[in-house]
């Protein structure tokens, strides 16, 4: 984990606990990473081999492209970015918190329902926004 930007360790711990709860509630989630908009990991849980730091950086780029494309297309703010792959689904959701925006990335295993992942990510976002 990069150590510079997210210095509020108590808040980080609370968000980490929320990620654990999310993964417990949705067994199809194989990885979840919470990161800053510029790609630093804040908290993560993982059941896959991908480095959370790498996921955080890729999430930053992917969400930035989604936001820019939404804006250029006149669609206003980008709410989430979804990647449906042959062996699973990735959902990226932007969370506007009191201090700074964060990005949540959820990686769902093959067969995971998109609706379930979206619902879980939005529930998480609503709770994390109050942290």
């Amino acid at each position, binding site marked *: 984990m990069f150590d*510079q930007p*997210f210095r509020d360790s108590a808040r980080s711990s609370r968000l980490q606990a929320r990620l654990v709860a999310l993964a417990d509630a949705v067994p199809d989630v194989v990885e979840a990473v919470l990161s800053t908009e*510029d790609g630093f990991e804040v908290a993560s849980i993982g059941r896959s081999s991908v480095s959370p730091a790498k996921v955080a*950086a890729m999430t930053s780029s992917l969400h930035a*492209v989604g936001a*820019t494309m939404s804006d*250029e297309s006149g669609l206003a703010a980008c709410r989430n970015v979804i990647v449906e792959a042959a062996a699973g689904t990735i959902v990226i959701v932007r969370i506007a918190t009191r201090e*700074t925006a964060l990005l949540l990335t959820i990686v769902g295993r093959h067969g995971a329902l998109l609706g379930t992942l979206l619902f879980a990510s939005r529930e998480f976002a609503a709770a994390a926004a109050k942290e």
Partner: protein
Amino acid sequence: MSGHEYKIIFTGTMGAGKTTAIAALSEIPPVSTDVPNSDLGAFQKATTTAAFDYGELTLDGGNRLRLYGTPGQERFRFMWSILARGALGVIVLVDNSRPDPLADLGIYIDNFADVVATGCLTIAVGRLDTHPDPSLDVYYEWLLARDLAIPVLAADVRRRDDVLVLVDTLFSLIEAKVIAAEEADAMAPGAAVGD
């Protein structure tokens, strides 16, 4: 050689001026993927590029350049290889005020090795007025020690004319390479013979 489209890349460390260079040159409003910068320890800058910058420029003679800027930080290295696909040339912006600008340059030389191998690379050194060391001669020596003959220019990327010189320099390298390839094709056995 006119009426073609070419993709070129601006790369370099965070704060070296990639977004500024593309904004200075582009004839369309540049596309930006800036996000808030939370790493103020690394660079005192409100935003940073997370995916790419994009702009367009038509050169005299009708050739069009698609200008892409990369994110600077190494954690975004995966974007460098994505953006490098199909690129005919790279401009590396080096910030001479950083602690070790030659080491910075080495990172981009290594990561854009495929383009470096074609010779279509130009290096622009910024903030030389306030940070004269290393000098351009030191850059040339550093490159020669690595068997690289690459143009190195001083540039203030806030000035459009400076950026245009960089692009012209790079484009002349690309042009020479394209012409050499066309001549090689024409000389190849079995090439069509004109009337």
